């Protein structure tokens, strides 16, 4: 088992019914040797790498397509990263924006599970100049 530190953030999609509190309590209840910190978007977990991944997989069972995760470079409570220390770091805005997009990704995962076939629409092309000219002439 890898003892290397892994810090991971778990983020709940806006469409999921799971709450950060529920997620954190579920993880606590697992009784594993990892740290858990509830956040506004889900929670942060930290511990030996393999254990963190095991917990991630188990926690995801609450809502497999509604809970997302990525690793975080900084350990929990690292003052270099802490918002209280001197305001939000740039990555915070990014997380906010990705959180909004999770609705669509969640829907995509559900569709994939259902085996839905997705057809890629033809990309929109720019209007040929000759066509545009005609439109301009009509409107003159």
């Amino acid at each position: 088992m890898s003892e290397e530190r892994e810090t991971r953030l778990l983020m709940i999609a806006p469409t999921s019914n799971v709450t950060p509190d529920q997620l954190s309590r579920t993880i606590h209840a697992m009784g594993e040797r990892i740290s858990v910190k509830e956040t506004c978007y889900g929670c942060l977990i930290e511990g030996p790498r393999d254990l963190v991944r095991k917990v991630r997989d188990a926690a995801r069972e609450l809502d497999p397509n509604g809970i997302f995760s990525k690793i975080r470079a900084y350990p929990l409570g690292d003052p270099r990263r802490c918002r209280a220390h001197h305001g939000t770091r740039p990555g915070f805005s990014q997380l906010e924006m990705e959180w909004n997009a999770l609705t669509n990704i969640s829907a995509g995962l559900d569709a994939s599970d259902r085996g839905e076939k997705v057809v890629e629409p033809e990309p929109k092309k720019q209007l040929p100049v000759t066509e545009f000219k005609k439109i301009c002439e009509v409107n003159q």
Partner: protein
Amino acid sequence: MKVFIDPPNSLILFDLIERFGHEPLSTMAALQERVDNIEIDMPPMNVTLDDVIKGLKYAGIEVPSGIRGRLAVWGPLIEEADAAVVMEGAPFSFGCVGCERSNLMVKYLLQRRNIPVLYVTYPEDEEQGKLVVAKVKEFLQGLDKKEAN
């Protein structure tokens, strides 16, 4: 397989790559090595002068230091990658991906590697979300087959 993600700090791409059984190569992992190195005291990220100088491998001295520093972090990941997934038009690109010139250079470096690269567009609705997931899944499963061969 090791799959480079662009934006390299994207939660969505990181999650999808792992979910479909591959190893994402991200900024977070590259920075973790640095922030955990107790011998360096260059907070917040421990990107050092040495890093910025190493960035000269990717861009000349006339290129702003912020670009060279970023490329010094990502360059080795791109070199290590077996494949890449690029999400275009992502409105969420702050922090490490805050510099558009650096981001253009990353796409170019990926192109030069001649590895399989999937380009997807940031989804604006559920239909597009389905398309992104389907394409990423298909691409990553294709990599599995390639590996099996």
